[in-house]
């Protein structure tokens, strides 16, 4: 039998894959390495090892309050988008749904409409309604862009649930809503947690909408980051916080993946 790839092909493809992975991780490594750089300017030769930028960053109340704002918006976005996404998933999981293609298209629309358009649209609407730009408005926008991701995470899980388990609850006398709360929802838990995490990270990283709508005096964390890159004295702090965020999100991504696999195995063996 001839395999699809020859020996030389294997070596070539493996080397290429390795090189590309190195290319993907290099900027992240640079960010972490230079967060310990003593000089204001991130360049070689290496000026010396320091942890002072981490101290400076956490002592900077503009930066820490921006982080708190974004964490709060991200958390609220995670909960709200997951609630709305689950509602949509439950409705779309029905065999019959009036005008299903229309709902599907509408709910997936935020995936394709450019954020710049969404952002200026919100600027115009706020102006029209006579509202000031506010962090609540940022949250409203973030919920809209996180909603389709939540739907795409929850709906497939909802479909893989073993119908006989819900059937058993119904046989034992649970009404539909009780069966949903006591059986379906706990089985959905891994997907719901994943949805909250995904929505949180989308919001926590979102710059386009926030740059237009966050009030000038109270930037979100990405808006602060952006202004930091334009201010040489802030740049080392931006890099220090960036290094922490990159490290944390790597841990989060990997643990979410491990958790998802664990849940898959558990569902498969149930």
């Amino acid at each position: 039998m001839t395999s699809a790839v020859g020996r030389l092909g294997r070596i070539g493809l493996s080397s290429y894959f390795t090189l590309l992975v190195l290319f993907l991780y290099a900027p992240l490594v640079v960010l972490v390495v230079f967060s310990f750089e003593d000089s204001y300017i991130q360049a070689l030769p290496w000026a010396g090892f320091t942890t002072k930028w981490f101290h400076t960053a956490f002592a900077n109340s503009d930066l820490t309050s921006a982080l708190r704002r974004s964490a709060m918006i991200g958390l609220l976005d995670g909960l709200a988008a997951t609630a709305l996404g689950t509602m949509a998933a439950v409705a779309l999981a029905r065999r019959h749904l009036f005008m299903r293609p229309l709902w599907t298209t509408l709910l997936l629309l935020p995936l394709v409409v450019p954020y710049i358009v969404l952002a200026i649209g919100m600027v115009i609407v706020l102006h029209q309604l006579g509202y000031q730009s506010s962090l609540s408005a940022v949250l409203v926008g973030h919920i809209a862009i996180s909603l389709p991701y939540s739907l795409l995470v929850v709906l497939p899980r909802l479909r893989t649930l073993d119908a006989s388990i819900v059937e058993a609850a119904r046989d034992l006398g649970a009404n539909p809503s009780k069966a949903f709360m006591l059986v379906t929802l706990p089985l959905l838990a891994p997907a719901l947690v994943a949805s909250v995490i995904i929505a949180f990270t989308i919001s926590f990283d979102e710059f386009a909408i926030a740059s237009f709508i966050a009030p000038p005096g109270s930037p979100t964390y990405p808006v602060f980051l952006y202004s930091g890159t334009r201010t040489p004295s802030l740049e080392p702090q931006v890099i220090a916080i960036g290094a922490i965020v990159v490290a944390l999100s790597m841990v989060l991504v990997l643990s979410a993946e491990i958790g998802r696999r664990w849940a898959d195995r558990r569902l498969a063996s149930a």
Partner: protein
Amino acid sequence: MSAVRPRARRSASILRPGSGLLILPPAVWVLAVLVAPIVLIGLYSVNLKTNLLGVPTAFSTANWKDFLPPGSNPFWDRFKISMTITVAVSVITVVAAYPLAYFLAFVAGKRRYALLMVLLAPFFTSYLLRVIAWQVILNNHGVFNSLLWDLGLRPHGDGIPWLIYSKFSVGLVLFYSWVPFVAVPMFVVLDTMDRSLIEAAHDLGASRLTAFLRVTFPLSIPGVIAGFVFVLIPTTGEFITPLLVGGPSSFMFGNSIQSFFTDTPNWNYGAVLALWLVAVVLVMLLVFGRYLSTDLEDAAT
């Protein structure tokens, strides 16, 4: 055996775990936050609304006529430059990602899902931070230039002029951002491909190259197109990467839209550009949409 219930009613309740009315809150949210503003942008684009003082609101297509050819203006040129960058980045990204998908599907074996995660993990970290990291690397006095100086490859203080604030830097960072994600649809197609077709080609005397060109590659085209669209659509509306590592020569169409809402507020003209961008993306979706079948559509049938 009196506990036996009508079977039909029971299974119906399982297939309908909740009320269809639950679709309304999320749908209304998207309508209010996304669709209504686009309608309002439409009104601004034809001057039925305006933010300019002293300008009467009356239906006018003057801004549209000024923007669209043959009304030569800098924004149409910017759109063309922007689309050139977008299409070039999309093609290069797909070409570079195909061998990654091929490696995962045909060489990586049992470790392929773990390696796919390794490939994708950077994609899930902060987009903004990754662009900032590239800024640190590509800066005139940044990591890459100073490395060349240290190694004596370039005279000290003399940075490579096109390394940052150029089409190169914008293209490189966009390529970097999308290459792992673009590999996913191609990996899925290659991984689920019927291997016996390739074996059959070999049995019939085809060399590896012939089998690839005549069997594997044609079968993987839907994944290739999906990957292409995955980078094409978001890049069409891109404005953050050019903002950080681009310059006047490499600003994209999204930056033009942005300028009408920040530097020189003219919402009416900006609305024309924004609506044009939405139209371009919708046309892309109409052309390529059938290659983007999601779980939702599969599940709906």
